[in-house]
């Protein structure tokens, strides 16, 4: 139940968004997201977008490891 789904936002209207997750499209709630726009990537839990995804995990690894190497 807790597995998050990362997906691209296709459209947003009235606190509802259509997302594309690897080709599968679904309607979700964008009720707790502000400033969501088509093209954004989001993390979806139980049919609700909970956070924007801002970069790839490999880019993130560069930032996270920066001061340890």
């Amino acid at each position, binding site marked *: 139940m*807790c597995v998050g789904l990362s997906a691209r936002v296709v459209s947003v209207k009235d606190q509802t968004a259509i997302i594309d997750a690897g080709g599968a499209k679904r309607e979700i709630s964008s009720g707790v997201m502000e400033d969501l726009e088509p093209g954004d990537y989001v993390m979806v*839990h*139980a049919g609700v977008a*909970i956070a924007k995804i801002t970069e790839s*995990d490999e880019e993130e*690894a560069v930032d996270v490891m920066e001061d340890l190497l």
Partner: protein
Amino acid sequence: MNEQVKAARDIITGYKGRPLRIMEVCGTHTHEIFRLGIRKLVPEGIDIISGPGCPVCVTAVGFIDEAIWLALEKGCTVCTFGDLIKVPGTEMSLAGARAKGAKVRPVYSPLDAVELAKDNPGEQVVFLAVGFETTTPSACLAVKKAQELGLENFSVLTANKTMPNAYNALVGSADAFIYPGHVNAITGNGACKRLCEEKGVSGVVAGFTASELVTALAVCIRLLEKGEPFFRNCYPRVVRDEGNPAAIKLMDEVMEPCDSEWRGLGLIPMSGMKLRESYAACDSRIKYDMPLITGKPNPACRCGDVLQGKCKPSDCKVFGKVCTPLHPVGACMVSDEGACAAYYQYSGLV
């Protein structure tokens, strides 16, 4: 694999320091660390233990009994995340209740349960609201939507839980925590930072891909070697310090803190969430004047010890014998996020 991830892998495999206990709090982390083979990278001196971050696993037996009471005694249609259906109650699971005629429907989202209620005005629909801060906003949105639609045939049975007080209960059980990324995506990092500053509890927030888990584990090991308490957000592409303010505001509007029973950890004060009085019409316990129902866990099951890192699933006498994913004795063997299910599937012990 980029240079940073290779370096992180080398930090893990090359560790030769003092023995370390690192607890992955989140059930999905438990599974991904197994599934991705990360456990095989970890040298003998590092013990990766599982924590109580699988919401299905920490849901008390009595909650399952309450849901079955609503389904069998009150004739409600019970909508639930699929993981809960096979979790044993005192006498039976929801799957067993379904075999006796109960209407039990798995849903992906609580909002789907609202749609079901809207489309079936003759049915009384109950959604089983379990989960941590990650899924609680979806239950709150469902309650608000049902109220906006004027639905009188939708209610929720709450067992929502919050992590900060569980962390307090776990202090001392590990050298460091790997915090659940998607809980912090909602709550922000404040509680984890306070644990570090006030109680010296170390931890990192981790994502769920191979590179995220490897880098988070490497950061954790390197900072443990330095010996000072630390907190580090290793999942910044999703987790912001402030979390999700709109979700926090929504949860505060619809729900309020309450004491909560955790399987294995017992009653933790103010570690649960229940509907506020203004949403009482959607509270199944009030709506159906539910009597006090307390469950009795199977005494052979050691899920409680597993959830606190006191033993490994394979230390439990029923693991892999009486208790299997097809015939689970405890909740940790049911859920895809449960530690026992992960050990059963990936450890090669069975």
